[in-house]
């Protein structure tokens, strides 16, 4: 490789690294939050979010639909590991109490907040995998196109499926709290 080619290559790499940093700064927290809501496991969500960005960097270029791509990769990572799936289910059903964060509230408030979190976790666990992902992606601000890409449905069906997922979640939450 001669000097001008190397210079072009270095410039492209620097440009990609800068785009990657911007995307990371804009999307890391959102991806972590989505994965934490999805799995109920903060450690797993952190590992997955970092692995997704590692793979994105190793890809060497940003996909057109970066957020849809990242959600798809995260879903695949989750699916690929059966042990992770077992662990996730166990956490979602049995250990919702360790999911709290922020400043320590008073004991009664904490109990209520813990009960609320358990109810939300139970309601989410009752949804189908697709409904759960769609609902959580929607509440991270994903567009119809990005949601469609991430869960593998047609863009035209996203709105209707989201309405039904929301209704199913509310029904499950009501049942869980009663």
């Amino acid at each position, binding site marked *: 490789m001669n000097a001008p080619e190397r210079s072009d290559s270095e410039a492209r790499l620097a440009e990609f*690294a800068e785009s*990657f*940093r911007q995307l*990371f*700064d804009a999307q*890391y*927290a959102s991806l*972590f*939050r989505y994965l*934490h*809501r999805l799995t*109920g496991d*903060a*450690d*797993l969500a*952190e*590992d997955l*979010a*970092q*692995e997704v*960005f*590692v*793979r994105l*960097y*190793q890809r060497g270029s940003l996909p057109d639909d970066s957020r849809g791509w990242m959600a798809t990769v995260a879903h695949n990572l989750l699916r690929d590991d059966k*042990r992770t799936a077992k*662990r996730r289910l166990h956490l979602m059903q049995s250990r919702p109490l360790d*999911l*709290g*964060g*922020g400043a320590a509230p008073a004991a009664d408030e904490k109990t209520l*907040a813990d009960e*609320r*979190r358990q109810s*939300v*976790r139970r*309601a989410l666990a009752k949804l189908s995998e697709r409904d759960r992902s769609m*609902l*959580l992606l*929607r*509440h991270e601000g994903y*567009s*119809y196109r990005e949601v469609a890409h991430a869960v593998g449905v047609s863009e*035209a069906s*996203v*709105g*209707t499926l*989201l*309405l039904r997922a*929301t*209704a199913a*979640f*509310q029904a499950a*939450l009501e049942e869980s709290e009663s």
Partner: protein
Amino acid sequence: MSGRAESSHLTETELAALIYAAGQNRDIERTAYAHLAICAECTQLLGEMREADGATRKALASIDVPTPPASAATIIRLAQGHARSFKLAHGWRVAASVAALVVVAAAAAAIPASPVHRFLVRTFGAGDRIARPATTPSPAPVAVAPPGVSFVPGPDSPLEIVFTGSGMGGSVNIRIVDGDRVSLSNQDGSATYSVSSTRISINESRPGVFQLEIPRSLREVRVRAGDSVLFERAPARKSSADSVTIDLTGSKLRR
């Protein structure tokens, strides 16, 4: 959608567009709002759906935890070291498989009544060579590195090694070394690991002896088994021994 008769009620697609995709399709919104102006039933339905959406947002926010700190620089460093770590781990597996095959084949051939032995005698007719193990050259020893993980952490990033597997036992030999890589391995290969830039999680393992090497330059390291902190190397603690053994069963330190 703009051709829809104003007298027919809104479809789920139109209602969803008003809730989830506001501002993205002006045509649908214009005709939908024209209908809502004259239809109390659809207005009420839209109100209920928006309420459910708001309640869902609030419920989901209640399970959030603070986002752990992370930086693009750390991810890039991890991405650049990732392929090397994977290749190394993959190499260990291949080497271990080859070694295991050599050992099994040699053992099978050395047993006089074994099918492998009989096959070799039949095929080569050189029973003498096979039947006299004392003159048979032993297979060359194959150096096999134990399975594990290895990567270069950021010098300023705290690192946590967390044993999360149930039924964990055995021990961890910790060595402070002069290199720049963190390495964790166990001899029997039963452990599975999850690795990020700031954490190594040991998810499943039989009781065994782990070897952990920590670069001297890494100032903050903590080893946990579940919630119990078994080892900590922090900037405030200047005197960390170069070699420490932790008992994972009883959480005891041996020096």
